């Protein structure tokens, strides 16, 4: 798995009152196979940051390197999972959604069907291979999206609050489930969220982004062993630490 490096990444956007700096000189690394969460209040630029790494936005200055290579624009080397359930293609079954990345690479039909099956199994949706997205629950759709983002074997996985639109119970379940998938695939994960408990549950390391402009405020390594108990004292202590970091300078 590849590591991700962000080197002095800045991003300005135009507004009615002139250019606004959304991100200012953000630098950090994500180690190979590390699960890194970026936490910040809404408007801190965390989604912008993810969109830059994904290649949807071009940084005003600075660069992104994946596996040591500078990335320009979008490419098939990063898997992206969004918050919006609508990300799946409604005209394709779960199976054919998962096949998409392989199809655009020209993988033969039989082989991509087999690979898609394997990844649907990984997300425990084998039985729903022939279902269309609208026939699946929100949690199932997000699992298909995860399988789809993994199936073409990208070196890193970028996730933008993938579970934020789910109900609390499903979200807990999905977090446990994602840790399982990550332990199995050992992908490098860059995960954006505003939910502190979620970050502490998932991450090897948490980076807190401060707003206006977005800069790295603090980094915390979560040293808890997995599976983590969200009600343990150590877990809550980490949660307090991150909440305190978020609250600084307000």
């Amino acid at each position, binding site marked *: 798995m590849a590591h991700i490096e962000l080197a002095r990444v800045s991003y300005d956007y135009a507004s009615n009152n002139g250019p606004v700096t959304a991100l200012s000189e953000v630098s950090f690394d994500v180690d190979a196979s590390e699960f890194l969460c970026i936490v910040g209040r809404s408007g801190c630029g965390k989604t912008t940051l993810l969109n830059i790494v*994904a*290649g*949807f936005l071009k940084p005003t200055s600075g660069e992104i390197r994946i596996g040591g290579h500078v990335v320009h624009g*979008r*490419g*098939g080397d*990063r*898997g*992206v999972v*969004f918050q*919006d359930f*609508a*990300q*799946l*293609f*409604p*005209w394709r079954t779960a199976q054919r959604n998962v096949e*998409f*990345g392989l*199809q*655009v*690479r020209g993988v033969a039909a039989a082989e991509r069907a087999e690979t898609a099956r394997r990844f649907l199994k990984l997300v425990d949706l084998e039985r729903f291979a022939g279902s*269309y*997205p*609208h*026939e699946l629950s929100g949690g199932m759709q997000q699992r298909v999206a995860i399988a*789809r*983002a993994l199936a*073409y074997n990208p070196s890193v996985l970028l996730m933008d609050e993938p579970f934020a639109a789910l109900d609390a119970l499903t979200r807990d379940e999905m977090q446990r489930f994602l840790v399982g998938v990550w332990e199995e695939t050992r992908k490098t994960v860059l995960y954006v969220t505003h939910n502190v408990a979620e970050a502490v549950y998932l991450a090897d390391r948490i980076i807190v982004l401060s707003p206006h402009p977005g800069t790295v405020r603090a980094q915390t390594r979560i040293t808890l062993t997995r599976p983590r108990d969200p009600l343990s004292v150590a877990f809550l202590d980490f949660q307090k630490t991150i909440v305190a970091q978020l609250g600084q300078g307000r």
Partner: protein
Amino acid sequence: MSPLGIVLSFGLSAIAWELFARSGMLPAAITPSVFAIGAAIGRMVLNGTLFVHIGYTMFRIVVGLALALAVGVPIGMLMGRFRPAERFTLPLVSVLSPIPSLAWVPLFILWFGLGNAASIALVFYAATFPVILNTWTGVKSVNRIWVRSAESMGAGDHAVFRRVVLPGSLAFVIAGLRQAFARAWIAVVGGEMIAATSWGLGWVIFDSKEYLNTDVMLGSLLVIGGLGLLIERLVFQMLEHRTVGRWGMVKTVRT
């Protein structure tokens, strides 16, 4: 529609017509009874002319619609994808689209002569604009997150167009096709009345006027209505139901 409801609404309407026809308010010669209308349809079925009329009308519809799709879909796609194409085409489409297609009939007769060509041109004119406008809207309304997802998975411009924009806009294209058919069906019957020379459902109505064959006229009208409904039901509703309905992209209503 329940079968009972259909029988009831047609049955009551037939009875009402029959009472009116026999009331003597209008001469009996121009208000044929339900049985005479049925017999006229039966005669046309038995001697086979009905099917020839239907065949000609369908031929004009199918060719005209196919041309409208072949021209309208690419134009709508270009408008949706490229700003200059949109800026150039939209004013033309906006002005041409509201012109009733029948208003073109005299010109089309001068240009294409009497016969199939003028009727097909008329269908083409009536059908093209709904196809263009709906395709354009469809492309514009393709969800950006689909495009981003596809691009993140390594799809280039060509793959995005073929595998995302085309299927993503299909709900609108089909809606456009339904509208196009409805307009074309009206246009072809009207066109045949004036521009056709010997065959077609519109022509037979107009021709019957010469001989005061009101039973044939009303019978043909019923055939036109029934056939239009059948095509809408069998072809377009089925098409929608099996594609965008199946995908949850539109709510299909079974009427």
